[in-house]
């Protein structure tokens, strides 16, 4: 069985985001870029499934400009066998990404496709679900535990009300939550080895995908600031403050 893992290049989660003064976007100039943290967890899970003997090959796939090859190389260094870049000069929205992944699926015939549950830039949380719909296959989102048993997988999902368990037939799409695993660290020799692993580039239009129906993204603004608060000395003052606000 092959496993496809979606990887997105995003601003590192430690970076403090600054909105550009002309409202055209956020400042990404000279900012540290990383693999979306949820996608690292997705890849880690794929590698563990392979290491347990339940998969033969792990392929990392990213849609974007050539700069996303850097993140694909990180994926290869973590242990993926090969990488595919879906080349697109414009930033793609989830529906286009899902359509492109469907084309890759037709070529590769994977048993599992694993994504992060959301990307920490757009916070959309859509791509995996959209792919499952277009592919007419099951989806198990927000996974905090997964067990592959032959032709199906049992997935525990972190939902608002607690932990939900579903069983899905393979092939299936799984999106992963933070508590699924802790991704391994990349070691230097692995980075060297990753340079020799195959990384195929395929243009979006070669796949026959045209971008259409985009959501138009307009002005960016910083979030409204909360007013400056007060500091109190002790519990008694805290209670007074709460009473003054009618909260006690």
């Amino acid at each position, binding site marked *: 069985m092959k496993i496809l893992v979606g990887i997105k290049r995003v601003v590192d989660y430690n970076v403090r*985001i600054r909105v550009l003064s002309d409202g055209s976007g*956020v400042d990404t100039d000279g900012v540290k870029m990383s693999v979306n943290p949820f996608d690292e967890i997705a890849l880690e899970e794929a590698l563990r499934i392979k290491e347990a003997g339940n998969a033969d090959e792990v392929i990392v796939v990213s849609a974007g400009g050539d700069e996303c090859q850097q993140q694909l190389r990180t994926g290869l260094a973590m242990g993926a066998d090969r990488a595919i870049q879906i080349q697109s000069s414009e930033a793609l929205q989830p*529906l286009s990404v899902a359509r492109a992944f469907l084309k890759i699926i037709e070529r590769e015939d994977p048993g599992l496709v694993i994504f992060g549950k*959301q990307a*920490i*830039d*757009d*916070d*959309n949380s*859509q*791509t*995996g*679900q*959209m792919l499952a*719909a277009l592919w007419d*296959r*099951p*989806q198990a*989102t*927000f996974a*905090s535990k997964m067990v592959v048993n032959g032709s199906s997988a049992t997935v525990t*999902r*972190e*939902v*608002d*009300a*607690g*932990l*939900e368990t*579903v*069983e*899905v*037939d393979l092939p299936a799409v799984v999106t992963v*939550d933070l*508590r699924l695993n802790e991704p391994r660290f990349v070691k230097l020799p692995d980075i060297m080895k990753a340079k020799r692993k195959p990384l195929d580039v395929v243009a979006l239009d070669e796949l026959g995908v045209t971008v259409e*129906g*985009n*959501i*138009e*993204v*307009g*002005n*960016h*603004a*910083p*979030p409204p600031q*909360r*007013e400056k*608060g*007060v*500091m*109190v000395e*002790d*519990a*008694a003052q*805290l*209670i007074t403050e*709460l009473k003054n606000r009618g*909260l*006690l």
Partner: protein
Amino acid sequence: MSRILIIAEHDGQSLNISTAKCVSCAQAIGGDIDIAVIGSGADAVAAEAAALDSVTKVIVVDAEHLEAPVAANWAAEAVALAADYSHVIGPSTTMGRDLMPRIAALAGVNQISDIMEVNGPDSFKRPIYAGNAIVDVSAPAGSTVVATVRAASWKAAGSSGGAAVEQRAASSSAATHTRYIGLESGGSERPDLQSASKVVSGGRGVGSEDGFQVIYQLADKLGAAVGASRAAVDAGYCANDMQVGQTGKIISPDLYMAFGISGAIQHVTGIKDAGTIVAVNKDSEAPIFEIADIGLAGDLFSVIADLDELLG
């Protein structure tokens, strides 16, 4: 004029409050508002939905295989209804985030996630980068708007309406590729974290599962729900479903009290809409104090002990 369909969230017994918040968002969009209750034997839910203000019609799609909210099954029904509507919206809870993109893809449109404000019928504000930027987005003209509504940004609509309830036969059969096994919930007697007016939260500073007992006691005294930071959840001090933040719950209680939480952006994004934020942290430089309305630099255990005594 817009025709808006809201996909109700429920557990078969009662309507989740996020649905009433979607109604408020729909009111801001303006137009005819219908609610779809997809489920099995969910009559009580339909009655609750029909009582929500400014709802024209509740459409009940009832079939055994629709009992659990399996996205593949629910999306098939929602898409069958969608043709009559300009907007199909649902809450940005885990249920809505699972379901709505599946609907959007089947309808062949991109989805708008987490509407926090309505600019116009097809134009909205939504947060990106964990709420560190707010962006204006517009759906392309003439296409169905499929969207999730950021519950914390909206007040629940009132319940003095009386909409018609209409039964509709399920249009699809069960997806055999997905089997719902079950739900294991914390089963707490405390108020629900997502709708409580007061929340008491603990972080890594609480130190242990035992330490969390004082958080629970204070919460019970205040009639509050209990939340936690990711660090507290990961350390096993409390259950997963208590996590507040970018990847946990986004909440907007009147009062949020954070004990031993440093104030990482991923946590703060979950509480930005709270009325009053109280922070107790022994480190007076902790970033949580930058957003707190009332801050107290000190040991959380002695502060809670004092509160306990003073509140009687």
